[in-house]
């Protein structure tokens, strides 16, 4: 029976990535656990990852969602490098790219233009995020 269910219902895979220098990952842990409890498979990157490492993980793990958590304010330099890397490996089009953290409004618009699908700030609820992923995760 479980075999049949597996065939109907695709398991969504998410990368939760900490990129750059900020050293706090309590939030990333909370999100990883919430996504796990929602039935997703979560690959957690660990702290202090470079954009290259995030790209490597996103490509090899073939995740549906690349979640990037940045609190350091370096999103304008790091996120574009991740997006470029994903494009280089043909791994951009069929993936959601989400950014979590503190991103000023002006920067938000800029990141969206570059290809970030959604940005979740400090007030975002977990249900909102999970609902968004369920709806928007690319069919493939």
């Amino acid at each position, binding site marked *: 029976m*479980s075999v049949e269910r*597996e065939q109907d219902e695709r398991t969504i895979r998410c990368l939760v990535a900490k990129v750059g220098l900020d050293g706090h990952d309590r939030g990333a842990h909370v999100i990883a*656990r919430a996504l*796990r409890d929602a*039935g997703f*498979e979560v690959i*957690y990157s660990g702290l202090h990852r*470079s954009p290259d490492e995030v790209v490597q993980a996103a490509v090899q793990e*073939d995740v549906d969602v690349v979640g990037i958590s940045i609190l350091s304010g370096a999103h304008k330099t790091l996120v574009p490098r991740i997006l470029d890397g994903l494009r280089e490996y043909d791994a951009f089009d069929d993936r959601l790219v989400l950014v979590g953290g503190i991103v000023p409004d002006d920067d938000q618009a800029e990141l969206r233009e570059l290809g970030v699908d959604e940005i979740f700030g400090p007030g975002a609820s977990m249900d909102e995020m999970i609902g968004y992923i369920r709806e928007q995760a690319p069919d493939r």
Partner: protein
Amino acid sequence: MSELVEALLAGKHSALARVITKIENRSPGYRDVVSALHRHTGHAEVIGVTGSPGAGKSTLVDKVAAEYRDRGHTVGVIAIDPSSPYSGGAVLGDRIRMASNAGDMDVFFRSMSARGSLGGLSTATTDAVTALDAFGKDYVVVETVGAGQNEVDIVRTADTVAVLVPPGSGDDVQMLKAGILEIGDVFVVNKADLDGADRTVQQLREMLQGRSTAGHHGASGTEVAGTTEDGGAAEDGWEPPIVETVANRSEGVGEFLAALSDHGDYLDRTGGREQQARDRFAAEIRTLLREDANRMVAAELDRGGGLDAYLDAVMARETDPYTVVDEVLEPLRDCLDGRSEHGE
């Protein structure tokens, strides 16, 4: 041949990743993909690494991958983590410890979750190894927590199985228990700098001395030793070595690789490698036959109106489970009998 298969064979990482996803999801067409890849396999050396949680498997695998890369080889790693029995979700965290190979695409690291299915995981793992082998990886390492039969099945995918035993992992009786200690070709006492490591090595040594040498790899029940004449009587057993490592400081990694390579040589010398491959494919064919036959029977049940009607009758004591099975399988039996009568 499909585009995806071509792209994988051409060395495209995203295609390899997508093939493994298809395999994991049992997506439509995954069987054709695996079939097409089969003829391109048979070159990779497959190593299984298992042991209790916290034994240091990921850290050791990271260093092993780095060492193989230094020697000019390419590496694939499949790391299996458990999934939640409630939500089906999983946190796959072994990637964190692959720091030595960060940014090196020629170490292809893939996390897989158990997805709650016992038999299915070993099939999926075997198929994922096929994909990495066809991609051209020289070494494929399959890493899994050794907690039960499931893991024993998975490591059967490997040519050589390494079992990690952390220091102080219980008394002598723990070591006598059946399970993962029986499947090791190489034993590793990792964290050998900790107190109690010497004692653990000693206990392991005693345990291994009591172990019969013939057929030890044989979860499959095969007697590797003595199957060929040129193996020679003096050579006919594999004595699993015990290697001490401190993986986080890269100590003992060279010795570990030497032990793996010795076992590989042993397999080549005795014809064990070929026998293992035959056993593996036999097991795979049997599993697939069982899966497909199950599916056909389930479909036949549905056509007959599902299990519920039968259950009502069984509950009312109008019939019984054996009779139900006979009835459901009757057309199948007739059909197969008919075929064999026609000499097919």
